C-alpha cells in the first residue's frame, strides 16, 4: 500500500506570500515527525526557491507560483514552479555569490542554501518559459516508520 501524500499550492508572486508558503509546507511536513532543524531547513530552502521566482522569474510582476509537496515514506519532495523568464545558464546561476541583481542586494546565496539544507536540488529551466526547482530531503525520526 502506498503511503504517499501530496498537496499543491498556487499563489500570487507577491513577497507577502513567502511567509505563507513556508508555513503551509512546514505544516504539511509535521506528519513526518520532523526535528525542528529539519523544519527550519525545508523552510529556508523553500523560501529561497519562492523568492527566486518572485524576484528573478517574474521580476516583480504578479503571476502564479505553484508549490507541490509529496511525502513518500520518509522522503519529502518539494517542487517550486514558475512560468517566468527562465534561467539561461543554470550552472552559473547555482554558483555561490553569483547574482544577476547585485543592485537589489541579492546575495547570490539562494541555491547554496537550497543545496545545503536539502539532500538534492535539481533545476530545470527553459528561457522564456519558466523554471522548475525539485528538492528532496529525508525527514523524520527512525522510530516514526509506521506513522501514517
Amino acid at each position, binding site marked *: 500500500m502506498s503511503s504517499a501524500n501530496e498537496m499543491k499550492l498556487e499563489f500570487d508572486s507577491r513577497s507577502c506570500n513567502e511567509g505563507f508558503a513556508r508555513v503551509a509546507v512546514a505544516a504539511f511536513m509535521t506528519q513526518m515527525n520532523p526535528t525542528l532543524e529539519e523544519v527550519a531547513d525545508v523552510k529556508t530552502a523553500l523560501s529561497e526557491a519562492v523568492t527566486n521566482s518572485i524576484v528573478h522569474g517574474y521580476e516583480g510582476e504578479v503571476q502564479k507560483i505553484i508549490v507541490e509537496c509529496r511525502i513518500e515514506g520518509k522522503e519529502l519532495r518539494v517542487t517550486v514552479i514558475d512560468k517566468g523568464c527562465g534561467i539561461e545558464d543554470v550552472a552559473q546561476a547555482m554558483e555561490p555569490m553569483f547574482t544577476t541583481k547585485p543592485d537589489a542586494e541579492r546575495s547570490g546565496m539562494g541555491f547554496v*542554501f537550497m543545496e545545503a539544507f536539502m539532500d538534492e536540488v535539481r533545476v530545470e529551466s527553459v528561457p522564456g518559459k519558466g523554471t522548475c526547482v525539485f528538492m528532496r530531503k529525508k525527514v523524520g525520526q527512525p522510530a516514526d516508520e509506521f506513522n501514517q
Partner: protein
Amino acid sequence: MEKCVEVSGTTLVIKVPRELDHHSAEYLRGEADRILGEKSIRSIVFDFEKTSFMDSSGIGLIMGRYKNIRFTGGKVTAIRANEQIRRILTLSGMHKVIEIYEGEPEVLERGQRR
C-alpha cells in the same frame, strides 16, 4: 508596524522582525538607509532577539549595510542570534566580516539600554 530602527549616539540598532525574508528585508532596507543618509552612524547592530527565521535575503540586507558603512571604518554586529540564525550567518561567510554574539555583549548593553 512596530518601530524597527533605533539610533543611540552613533549606533544604529536594527530590531530584526520575527522572520527576515525578502518581504521584510525590503522594508528594513528602506528604514535603515533613511537613517544612514540623515545621521552620522559609526556602527550598525542587528538585534535578532525576536527572530526565528532568516534566509539569503537577510544576508543581502546585512551585506549591503556592511558595504555602506565599511568605507567610513564602521562596523556591523549581530546580537542575540539563535542557533538557526548563526548557522545561516556562518554558511554565508558573514561571520568573517561581522561580529556575531549569541547574547548581548556588555559594551553594547551600557551604551544602548534605556
